[in-house]
């Protein structure tokens, strides 16, 4: 065993190591750029879907905004409460839990229920169809049915049913609102979980018109308004509207009285049950 060789080796490599560690430590002092280490920590805790549901261009941007105090800690709609809690720990504050939002499909005019106005040919997206008279369904207010909302959902929380209507899978919906953005007809709406009563129609046509257009259109008969009581619901432009500020969370309303079955009480269940028949 040649010990000199070993010593030389230790000395040379050790020397190299020393030189560079000295260099690095000097550099570490002289060249250090301050950056909040919490940004990285927050990013760790985010789900990383980069869905934009928070209104910022991505998870990293959201993290920076949280650190800068420009965004709510619970502002990420996707993050679990547990996750938000962890971020809060990083930030050293309490989280305010907001009520869960769920997307609702406010139309029941599927292929089966609505009148057709012709044959649509062209781009099979809802927004594309708006440039050519809005698809082949006659209703100018209802769902076009080319699934823009479904495509836009980053969490696979939607699908199109056989009747050509979108369906939200409640458990998967995070309330990010992408589908609301995507829908050119404003059929998708975000509602707090506590909203139970819905008028599943957007048609503003006169009763005469709407009867001709869809078997599941609100025909503006006003029965529901009368049953619900003044102030709780009202008719606006031939359409019944629920006043959610004071009503709609715990309604006791005989929904079957609605002649076209647009009135629905939706719990957590999939809206499809209401729409497919």
């Amino acid at each position, binding site marked *: 065993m040649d010990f000199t*060789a070993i010593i030389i*080796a230790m000395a040379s490599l*050790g020397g190299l190591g020393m030189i560079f560690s000295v260099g690095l430590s000097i550099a570490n002092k002289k060249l250090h750029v301050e950056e909040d280490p919490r940004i990285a920590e927050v990013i760790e805790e985010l789900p990383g879907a980069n869905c934009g549901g928070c209104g910022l261009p991505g998870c990293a941007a959201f993290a920076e905004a949280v650190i800068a105090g420009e965004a709510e800690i619970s502002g990420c709609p996707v993050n679990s409460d547990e996750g938000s809690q962890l971020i809060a720990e990083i930030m050293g504050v309490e989280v305010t839990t907001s009520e869960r939002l769920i997307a609702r499909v406010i139309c029941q005019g599927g292929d089966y229920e609505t009148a057709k106005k012709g044959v649509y040919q062209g781009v099979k997206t809802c927004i594309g169809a708006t440039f050519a008279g809005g698809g082949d369904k006659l209703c100018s207010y209802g769902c076009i049915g080319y699934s823009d909302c479904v495509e836009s959902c980053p969490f696979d929380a939607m699908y199109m049913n056989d009747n050509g209507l979108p369906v939200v899978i409640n458990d998967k919906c995070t309330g990010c609102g992408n589908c609301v953005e995507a829908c050119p007809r404003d059929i998708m709406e975000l509602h707090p979980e506590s909203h139970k009563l819905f008028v599943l129609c957007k048609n503003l046509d006169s009763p005469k018109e709407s009867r001709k257009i869809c078997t599941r259109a609100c025909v503006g008969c006003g029965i529901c308004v009368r049953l619900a009581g003044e102030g709780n619901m009202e008719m606006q432009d031939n359409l019944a509207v629920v006043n959610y500020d004071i009503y709609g969370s715990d309604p006791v309303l005989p929904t079957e009285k609605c002649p076209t079955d647009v009135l629905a009480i939706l719990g957590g269940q999939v809206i499809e049950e209401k729409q497919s028949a």
Partner: protein
Amino acid sequence: MNLTTKMIVVLTVLTMVAGGLLSYWDGITSPRIEAYRLEQLKQAIAEVLPDHESYDEVKADGMILYIGKNSNDPEPVGLAFEAIGNGFQGKISIMVGISLDFKKINAIKILEQLETPGLGTKIVEDPSNKEDRFWFPNQFKNLITEPQIDVVKNIKPGKPNEIQAITGATISSVAMATILNDGIQKAKSIYQLKVQ
């Protein structure tokens, strides 16, 4: 310990340990590696030179001549050297065994090459040729080197200094001839200078 010292100490200690460890390992492995290298060399020389007992090394100009000897024979049995040159893709290095007058190749062995598999690699062996997988390197056995080694294509060589090119790898074949021709020239001049 503050951070800076810690950084320096940790890295220095680590590298020292690593250096020591490796040097120790070097002591164990390098003799074996060296032995293997020598073994390989000896084997290659043995393959290209006729029977011999030992060889002398003559170094010059970056080339080593191995002169094969038998103890009871004053004349060396022949000469071996490594010829290196460019092939189709990269360097080809060939161990050449040659007669002392440099007129006749005894045999060659290709030590390294980077030719295209299946094409240029036929200079080493040709698995598709069932009769003689080594037909190409075997062509060099007892090949006459004067005036120089020539390559012919698609026909059987007519002259004693000709070899037949590999179909589809003319470049590699020609490169072999060139490397040998150049190497022989160089070895010859070294031999004449140093040995004679």
